[in-house]
């Protein structure tokens, strides 16, 4: 038990910490009345029946999902299930979706999603796909923005904590995945080592993942193996720096315990510069080494409405020690988090989360330093460029704890400050602070629509906050997560709106609605449905026994199932309901729920076939019904299935009876 003195000390410490937080320069206006001006409401009001201007793709954090909001209203439009099962849609429960969550660890029903990244054409979001990383069991998901569904998923081998991910090259040739944790790799003997041998036996990796342009199937093109550090965030070069990639890394102390203290010792960590076009060429020339790296690549086949898994045993690795010119380190103050590239591609902004300044690096100077071999030494054999030689300049005293930076189209940068809880606007060329606004409270990432791209749309900056406290009606110990919308149209940033978010919002991106709306799929054409158990019309509905498996080809249309009476199922059977929704109109899904099914419902879109597996546990007649209100006779949309004892002789039969039709 702790001594009373220690307890008092802790209490004092917490009080002092809170006091600092609430009284730091960024938190001075403490009420909404001092922060919001008169016409804010009209700027976020989207009148009933009209649409928002932007789609906002927000990470779900520990929900494992991707949340979609409209801006400027902050209205939640959809939560797309990516890494976590979703009983509402049947994702991860239906037979068709289960393979999407398969990994070398087996079926993994959850993850921690951090950074949405829109696919790009010419360094501008093109509205086709949204990627997001799974941090815990390293994966990247690809969401198709025609269906707003997870369309593809790849597991990252030789990675542990896929945090520095999934940032895109300017034409989505690749999305990258940098490991947060370095780990020992190779065969069992090489991996079973003392944690204390971190420096000798642990390695980091950054992977370049190629999504096939036509299908969205993902594979690992190559992996660059690095000295053991922690990778945090990354950005592609573009414009003048096209062909390069920049990764922030911390723990260059190479600590393996109590990182809070032991990884905060050095004055500077690194931003790692990778010449990815060179890496691509080396990989093509067969210069890499195939190493063990078993991983899954899962893909949604839209013809069969079913996910398929491909298993790879190896991965191609490039070691920078063998390839001079591939990788350089740049010193960057104090455990950098953000590593952001301005629209022209010339400036790389490091955000040392323990620093009180913002270093801005010049790509031109980086190239000159490389050409002149202007280095201050090496780190595990990789050259470290001289800080002063690659620096454009530093923004002095911008605030406390810079985390992440995005840009507008007018030469300004917007940096989030966690410790001083504010957004600071500054001029990139002049390195001068031009405005600052408080956030409520403790902002993490921020986002300007297109603010990572070559052509920012601007207009707003959104703060994704880490602390909620008193901003909303309290809901017990756990509060809603929160975001805040600011206008950046004038010289001064202006707080317009708070909106609650689901899961912890880490990073987010946004794109104009007009870029995405025309892509929307309204229903799946029943003619094109190639599901092996599709029933194209009630004439194809039936029931078949295959040993212990009973397969039911079933259809839905407003408002009945066919068949809706099934007999001859026995205890010990596995029943598969293959349900085809015959509707061919927008917004007419049907649901399917079976009493006692140990999973979830199905929610079947028009023209789609999905399968629910049910293992009956009781003899008797049991009901199923439609869960999604479909018509005035929705409550009549139901059926019965009779379960008999294992030794029963009831013949297998499925039927629908109509009282007055001559069928």
């Amino acid at each position, binding site marked *: 038990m702790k001594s009373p003195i220690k307890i008092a000390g802790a209490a004092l410490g917490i009080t002092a910490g809170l006091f600092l937080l609430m009284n730091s320069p960024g938190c001075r206006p403490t009420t909404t009345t001092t922060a919001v001006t008169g016409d804010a409401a009209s700027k976020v009001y*989207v*009148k009933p029946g*009209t649409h928002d201007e932007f789609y906002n793709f927000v990470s779900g954090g520990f929900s494992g999902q991707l949340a979609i909001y409209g801006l400027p209203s902050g209205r939640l439009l959809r939560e797309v299930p990516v890494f976590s099962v979703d009983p509402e849609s049947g994702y991860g429960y239906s037979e068709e979706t289960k393979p999407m969550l398969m990994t070398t660890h087996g079926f993994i029903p959850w993850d921690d999603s951090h950074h949405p990244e829109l696919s790009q054409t010419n360094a501008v979001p093109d509205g086709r796909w949204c990627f997001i990383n799974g941090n815990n069991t390293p994966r990247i998901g690809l969401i198709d923005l025609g269906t707003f569904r997870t369309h593809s998923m790849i597991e990252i081998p030789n990675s542990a904590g896929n945090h520095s991910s999934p940032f895109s090259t300017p034409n989505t040739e690749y999305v990258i995945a940098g490991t947060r944790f370095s780990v020992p790799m190779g065969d069992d003997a090489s991996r079973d080592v003392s944690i204390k041998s971190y420096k000798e036996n642990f390695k980091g990796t950054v992977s370049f993942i190629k999504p096939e342009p036509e299908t969205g199937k993902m594979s690992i093109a190559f992996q660059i193996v690095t000295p053991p550090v922690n990778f945090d965030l990354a950005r592609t070069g573009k414009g003048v720096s096209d062909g390069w990639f920049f990764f922030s890394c911390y723990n260059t102390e190479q600590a393996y315990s109590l990182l809070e203290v032991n990884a905060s010792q050095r004055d500077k960590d690194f931003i790692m510069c990778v010449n990815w076009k060179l890496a691509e060429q080396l990989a093509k020339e067969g210069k890499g080494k195939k190493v063990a790296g078993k991983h899954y690549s899962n893909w949604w086949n839209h013809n069969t409405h079913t996910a398929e898994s491909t298993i790879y045993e190896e991965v191609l690795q490039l070691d920078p020690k063998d390839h001079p010119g591939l990788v350089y380190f740049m010193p960057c103050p104090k455990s950098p988090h953000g590593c952001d590239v301005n629209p022209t591609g010339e400036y790389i902004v490091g955000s040392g989360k323990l620093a009180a300044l913002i270093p801005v690096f010049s790509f031109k100077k980086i190239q000159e330093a490389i050409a002149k071999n202007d280095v201050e030494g090496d780190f595990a054999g990789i050259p470290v460029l001289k800080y002063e030689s690659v620096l454009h300049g530093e923004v002095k005293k911008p605030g406390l704890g810079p985390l992440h930076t995005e840009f507008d189209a007018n030469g300004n940068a917007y940096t989030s400050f966690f410790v001083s809880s504010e957004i600071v606007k500054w001029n990139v060329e002049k390195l001068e602070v031009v405005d600052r606004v408080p956030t409520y409270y403790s902002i993490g990432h921020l986002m300007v629509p297109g603010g990572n791209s070559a052509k920012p749309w601007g207009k707003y900056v959104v703060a994704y906050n880490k602390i909620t406290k008193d901003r909303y009606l309290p809901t017990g110990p756990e509060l809603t997560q929160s975001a805040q919308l600011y206008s950046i149209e004038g010289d001064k940033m202006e707080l317009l709106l708070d909106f609650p978010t689901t899961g912890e919002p880490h990073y987010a991106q946004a794109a104009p609605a007009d870029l995405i709306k025309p892509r929307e799929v309204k229903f799946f054409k029943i003619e094109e449905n190639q599901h092996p158990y599709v029933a194209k019309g009630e*004439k194809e509905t039936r029931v078949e026994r295959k040993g212990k498996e009973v397969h039911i080809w079933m259809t839905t249309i*407003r*408002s*009945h199932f066919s068949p809706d009476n099934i007999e001859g199922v026995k205890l010990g059977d596995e029943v598969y309901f293959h349900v085809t929704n015959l*509707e061919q109109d927008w917004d007419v899904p049907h649901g399917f729920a079976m009493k006692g099914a140990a999973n979830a419902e199905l929610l079947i879109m028009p023209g789609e076939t999905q399968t629910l597996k049910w293992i009956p546990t009781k003899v008797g007649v049991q009901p199923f019904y439609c869960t999604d209100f479909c018509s005035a006779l929705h409550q009549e949309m139901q059926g019965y299935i009779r379960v008999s004892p294992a030794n029963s002789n009831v013949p297998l039969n499925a039927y629908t009876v109509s009282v*007055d039709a001559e*069928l």
Partner: protein
Amino acid sequence: MSPKILPGLATLVVTAFLFACGGGGESKPAGPPGASGEAPSAALGKSTAGLITAADISMGEIDQGMVEKGRGIYDVKCQACHSTGPNRVVGPGWKGITERRKPEWIMNMMLNIDVMLETDPEAQKGLEECLVRMPNQGLSKDDGRQVLEFMRTL
């Protein structure tokens, strides 16, 4: 039908129309408004623009090829609710349908159901009777014409 049931039925009809026109996820007559901020006033008007007219349909001798195509579409997209006999399942039976209804009325029910339910008294009467909104089954004009040809054989 017994008179006792009628008041209850009338309530149901009102409910059905509420869902048909407001909630229940049904699309608006002329589709959702396009650009953000656009007033949906045009969509709320009862325009019959775009409906198929008699002049749009040519009918000659029964074309057996079209009949077979129409039958194929019927099996996948229509049979769940319509029998080829005289009686109703969800919607009316199709036997003799082309003698009771004009070709353009049938085509519009298949292809332009939203406008028909907004503007056509006969279509509205059908909904009052069946209570389930006729689904838009995503038929092309050619699909609809082939289904019509199949109907002519019933």
